Structure formats: C-alpha cells, structure tokens
C-alpha cells in the first residue's frame, strides 16, 4: 500500500512537466507508428515474394522429373557441347545431355539435400542445447565443451576432412557438413533454454504439476523456436554453398548424378571454350542461394520484435 501511494505522488509531481512534453511527443509518435507500419507491410510484402520464389524452387525440385524436357541422364554423344538453342535452351554437356533438364533434376539433389541437412543440424543441435540448458551442471559443461571443440574448426576445412575420410557421395557430404554445423544450434537452444527455465511461468508450470517432458515440449520449445528458425533459414544458403563446394571438389554427389556443384566441377575446364556448360549450374546455385538468403533475412526481420508496431 505504501509503495502504491509513493508511486502516485511521484506521478503527480511529474505531471506538470510531462503535459508540456507530451504535446510535442504526440506529434512525433504518430508518424513513427505509421513509418513502422509501412516498414512492417514492406517486410510482409517481401516475405510473401520470397516465399513464393522459394516455393517455386521447391515446386521445380519436387516435380523435376515431370518438368524435364529431356531425360537428364540420356547421353547422345552426337549432340555433345551444343550451344543454347530453341531445342536445348541451356545447351548440352560433353555427353550430349540436355543441360536444362540436368539443372532441373539437379535441383532435387541440391535443394533437398540442403533442406535435409539444415533439418538434421537444427533438430540435433536444438535437442542437444535444450538438454544441456535444462540439465545444467557438469553434464552441461562437458557437453558444451565438446560443442566448443567442433566450433574451433574452420567449417569447410573440417567438412573436407570428414568427407575425405568417408569418401564421395551426397550422404557422406551431408554427414560431413552436419558434423560441424550442429553446435551453433546447440548454443542458441541452450542459451534460450537457460533464459526460459528461470521465468516465473516455468515455476508456475512446475507447481501446477507439469512433468519435465511437458515443460520442455509445452513451454520451452515453442518459446525458443523463433531464433532457431531464423538461424535455420539464414543457414540454407550457406549450407547449399557448402554442399555444392564439396561436390565441386569431388567429395559430394558422384557422377552421373545431376547436382549443381558436381556439374560445375565436371565442366570447369570448359569455362573458356564452352562457357554455358559451367555457367548454367553456377547461375542455378547463385539464384537459389540468393533467394534462400533473402528469405532468411526477411524472416528474421519479420520476427524481429523491434519491427513490431505498438
């Protein structure tokens, strides 16, 4: 009661000066809210555009087989290295295979592998991080030091070493990339879990008889999904580059699998003589990575609390 009356007196004392200020402030707040609303709408618009573009990529990769104008694996040596023409819009490679068909087919390997990789690392990292954050103590210390060890390695170099030991193949490349990428998610999930664990509603949940399982799945995970999701979205482009890089170095998809990185690798010596063979998969990687990166940025902006209007 005493606290409440003191607070009331304080407000009354401030009133006289605040009234004057508020007139000026009101004239500023109005446009700020409007600007924020415009900004928010813009972000929403961008989000829709990039979601449509990403959806289009996923659609192409999902129905790749049906969309290919030719069999992407059918060789016709008599039609080798043809430049782009109405018959072959992106030309043909040295085996006479239609490049457009291979690019479309390659989207399956490139995009789905990347999404699978991001899914694996985000799920594994989150489980790891939540466990550490929840459990705390020595278990947390030991497990987080393990994640620190992985974080200490340069990403691509470590992935190269792992893929080199395991040998070629897209599965091995995914494993190699996953081995180095999960700690980032573990750290995010752990810090968020630690923060959530100490909130009053968690105490209330405990008092109301929730089990650990319920508390994690009903309260912790929904509240930490935002940052994890944003990180995952931003990671898609990077992971796609990483996987394509491994394939380019001969440690990812193996021939004749249509995969953009390995297609670039196979044709790298033709960059000067038959540039379309190298540039076609390169442009496909560029466009896809750009779309997923911009989508990730937009999702981050959209979920950013500072962008929320009052």
């Amino acid at each position, binding site marked *: 009661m005493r606290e409440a009356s003191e607070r009331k007196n304080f407000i009354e004392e401030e009133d006289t000066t605040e009234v004057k200020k508020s007139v000026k402030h009101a004239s500023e707040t109005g446009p700020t809210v409007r600007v924020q609303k415009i900004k928010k709408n813009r972000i929403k618009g961008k989000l829709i555009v990039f979601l449509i573009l990403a959806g289009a990529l996923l659609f192409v990769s999902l129905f790749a087989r049906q969309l290919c104008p030719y069999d992407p694996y059918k060789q016709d*040596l008599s039609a080798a290295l043809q430049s782009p023409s109405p018959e072959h819009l992106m030309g043909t490679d040295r085996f006479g295979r239609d490049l457009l068909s291979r690019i479309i087919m390659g989207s399956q390997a490139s995009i789905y592998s990347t999404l699978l990789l991001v899914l694996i690392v985000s799920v594994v990292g989150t489980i790891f991080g939540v466990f550490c954050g929840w459990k705390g103590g020595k278990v947390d210390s030991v497990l987080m030091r393990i994640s620190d060890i992985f974080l200490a390695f340069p990403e691509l170099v470590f992935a190269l070493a792992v893929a080199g030991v395991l040998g070629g193949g897209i599965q091995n490349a995914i494993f190699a990339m996953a081995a180095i990428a999960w700690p980032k998610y573990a750290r995010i999930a752990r810090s968020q879990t630690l923060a959530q664990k100490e909130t009053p509603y968690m105490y209330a949940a405990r008092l109301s008889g929730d089990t650990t399982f319920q508390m994690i799945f009903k309260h912790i995970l929904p509240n930490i999904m935002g940052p994890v999701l944003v990180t995952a979205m931003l990671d898609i482009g990077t992971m796609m580059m990483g996987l394509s890089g491994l394939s380019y170095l001969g440690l990812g998809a193996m021939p004749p699998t249509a995969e953009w990185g390995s297609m670039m690798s196979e044709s790298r010596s033709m960059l000067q*003589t038959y540039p379309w063979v190298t540039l076609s998969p390169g442009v496909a990687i560029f466009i896809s990575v750009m779309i997923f990166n911009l989508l990730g940025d937009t999702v981050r902006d959209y979920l950013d609390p500072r962008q929320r209007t009052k």
Partner: protein
Amino acid sequence: MKKKLLSLGLVAGFAIPLAACGASTGGNTNETTAETTTASASAETTTASSGSSTGTKSFTYGTTGYGIDMSTVGTNPHDGYTGWATIRYGVGETLFKYNKNMEPEPWLATGYEFVDDTHIKITLRDDVTFSSGRKMDGQAVKECLEDLVAKHDRAPGDLKIANITADGQTVTIETSEPCPAFINYISDPYGCIIDMQVPEKDMIIAGTGPFIATKVTDDSIDLVKNENYWGGDVKLDELHIKGLNDGDTLTALLQTGEVDATYGLPYASYPLFENNSAYKLATAETSRQFFGKMNYNSEFLKDENVRKAICMGIDKEGFVNTLLQGHGATSKGPFPATFEFGDGKITAPEYDPEGAKKLLEDAGWVAGSDGIREKDGKKLSLTWLTYPGRMELPLLAESAQATLKDIGVDIKINQTENHKDFWKKGDFDIYVSAMVTAPTGDPEYFFTTHSLSDSSSNHEGYSNTELDSLAADLHKEFDKTKRGEIATKMSQILIDDNAYFFASHLQMGIFTKAGVTGLEPHPCDYYEITANTDIN
C-alpha cells in the same frame, strides 16, 4: 574535399592489393616471365625479357607428368618411376633409346651383341662424361647397374642380371636365365646411367644428360645447362619444370605466358590454342592404353555372356571422337597398330548394343521394370573401379555407364584415389585403368605383369593355361618376328576370353609457344626436353 579524399582512399584501396598481386605474380615466375603481359605477345616477350635482363636463355615447362601423384618426384632413376623425370627433363640418358617405331637404338652405347643366351656384351661410347666430370666407362656402368638391381623394384625381375664384368668401354652382362628383351628393358628410364661415386643429395644425382638439376622439390625442378655435354651444344641456359596436377591451372599458365610449353592440357582447353598462331601443338600416338579388366571372382562376371555383353556395350568410337575430341585411337588389343604385334592383326567385338542385349536375353538375363536385367532374383549391377588421376578415365566410366545401362547393366562407379586398395582386395567387378602397355617396345612386360596366372598385377583371378604356356615360349624366344606372333596370339586370347576390354590409346600432346623448337612428344612418352630444345 570530402569526396576527393574518399575517391583517393578508394583508389588507394584498390591499387594496393592490385600492386601486391602484381608483385607476387612476378615473384613466382622468376625473371623469365616478369615482363610478360599478354598471352599473344608472350612468345616474343618471354625470351626477350630473360635474354636482356640476365643474358641467359630460360625455359619453363609446365607438366602434369611430374609430382607426387605420378610417383615421379626426384631425379634418381633407381627409385620407382623417378627415372621418367630423369630422362624427360634431360638429366639422364640410357644405353639405348627407342626410335619412333619403339625399336632400341644406341645412345650411350654404340652397340650390343648376344654372346650366348645368357651373356650380352655392350660397347659404350668413348666420349661421354657425367655432369660430375667423371668419364663414363665400363666400370661406371657396372656400378650403376649393380645399384639399380639392388634398389629398384622392377628392374631385377626384368633384367635378371646375375653378374656384370667391365672392361674399358665394354660391359658384359650375365643373366640368370635367357632374357631376349634385355636391350628393350635396359632402355627403360630406370636404366639411366648415373655416376654412383657422387652420392644422391637433395634428390639430385649426376647424370650424362644436357641438363644438371640444381634444385628439386616435390613439384618443381630447376636445371642449368651441362656445359660439358657430350652430345654438343645445349641451346637453353636454364630450365624450370613446374609439376601440376590440375590441367586447368596449366591452361591458365600457358595463356598468361608463365610457362613456355605444357604437357597434359585438358582436351577441353585444346580449342584455345589450336587455331592460335602464338602456339603450336605436337602430337604422338602412344601405347598408353585405357583398358578394363574383368574380375573372375565376381558372381556376375563368371558368366562369359555377361563379360562379352559388356565388351560389346562400350562405345569406343564415341569415347575417342567426342569425349577425347579425336585425340586418341580406338583399340582392339593392348598394343597400338603401329606395333608389329599390335591392333592390325587381331579382332575384337565391335560396339553392338542390340547384339549385347540378345546375348544377355539368351543367357537368361531378363530386363526388370527399371530396365536393369535380373536373373535368379539378382540384379545385374556391377562396380566399375577407376581413378580420377587420368582425366580420361572418369569420362570413360560415365560414358560406359550410360551405354551399358541401355543394354540393361547397372554400373556403379567407384572413382577413387585409393583404387589400388580396392583393386588388391578384389573389391570391384571391372577395374579400369591406364598404362603404357609396351614401355620397352616389347610385348612381354604387359603379359607378365598383368595377365598370367601368377602375375603380380593379376587381382582378377584370371587364368588361361594356353596363355601361360605362350608366355613361357615368349620368354625364351629371341627371334623378333616370332615374338610378335606369340604376342599377337596372346592378345587374341585375352580378347576371346572377354577377360579384358581395350578402349583407346592415348594421343600425347605438347603445346608450346610458337617460338619453341626441339620439343616433341615421343610414342614411348619418355623423351621430352633435349639439348636441341630452344626458344626464339
């Protein structure tokens, strides 16, 4: 003012790294190419710059043939395949050298004589000195050959040397058994004669060639001319060998003028230089063969019909004409048609996909829903083991994968640097590799190392008693014509058994700047830089 400062800052920001790049390039390329600016002008500027700045004629040769990957690091011919570097870059020379028909001709020797089946008397030139200054005489050759058979992995088995006697400018070699191809074998790069009184130091030895190595690393050799070369004046003052395992880098180096000649350019880069007057291409058909061996221990390949269908299902013409862009020749057997015992006298299955399908159909292999044939519930799926070190092999694998799929055979490619581990363990169905089948101009080497029941490189379980018996005959036969006849029969057996398929012979190509002379490939793939190599 602020804008001016910003512009100045930006210019400085760009200029400093560019200047640094320029400096590093110059530093890497020695004075030879320091003043070279464009590819088209490089032929003229390279020599001019080196000549005017240092007064020496320098030459840089980029090659994929030197390096750890090719097992050719160093200059000591008594170490594995290092002799290839010794002879290719003018450090060492052999007693006999092959002519364009792969017949041995005197080089450091003046002649030879088979005293009897196990004694060969070789007469040496009287005017040869090592780079150490020592005269090459019978004693020097004796010391060298004794060290060779004591240290080398292949030489003792090839040469079968039991005893060597030196007398002035002659050496008499006694073999433990008749060795009709002795002169061919001794002409292998491991037979380079070096001065054994000069111990090898930092991978440098004293040879008799036109150049003396001064610095040898895993990916380069620096050499200077041998002022006392017995074979006459050496045109170049300095020679720099750059070993690279990436053909695209080599392409860029030739374009920028950092190298004066290249060996091992990717075929895709040929159009960049072929119709350009600033460059020249010299080619030679070699006995380097791209071939496959069937694993007789494979449950599928025990069936002769499957083996034959595979041989009929590989499009060799397409491989050579399209994928090698015509820089090769299709093969029937292990040796090119230029050899007396080569492709001209044997027959092999042609590319016939329909015939292959019928063969498999008749043998009970029925096409499944995915087009792959099955028998007794097992899909006809085979592992094709190969390696990426030879750029043609992955192309052959991918091409064969497609054509064999058309006849209903599924090919899984295992393309790995560790191919030898898989091969030795028998973990493959078809092993496809490349090798010089007649490195000595004689057919015996290929059969004894690969195809006989007890051959060291027979990991396929292949055995044919007639072939083994013919090999024994070949081993004893001194008459060259008869040796050729036996070899032809042996090649035909390999093909008739469908134990091997021979896809193509390599056409070796050396691109040089237009002003380069005296650098041409040789069918044996051994001789490259000579005393006559020059740049103008």
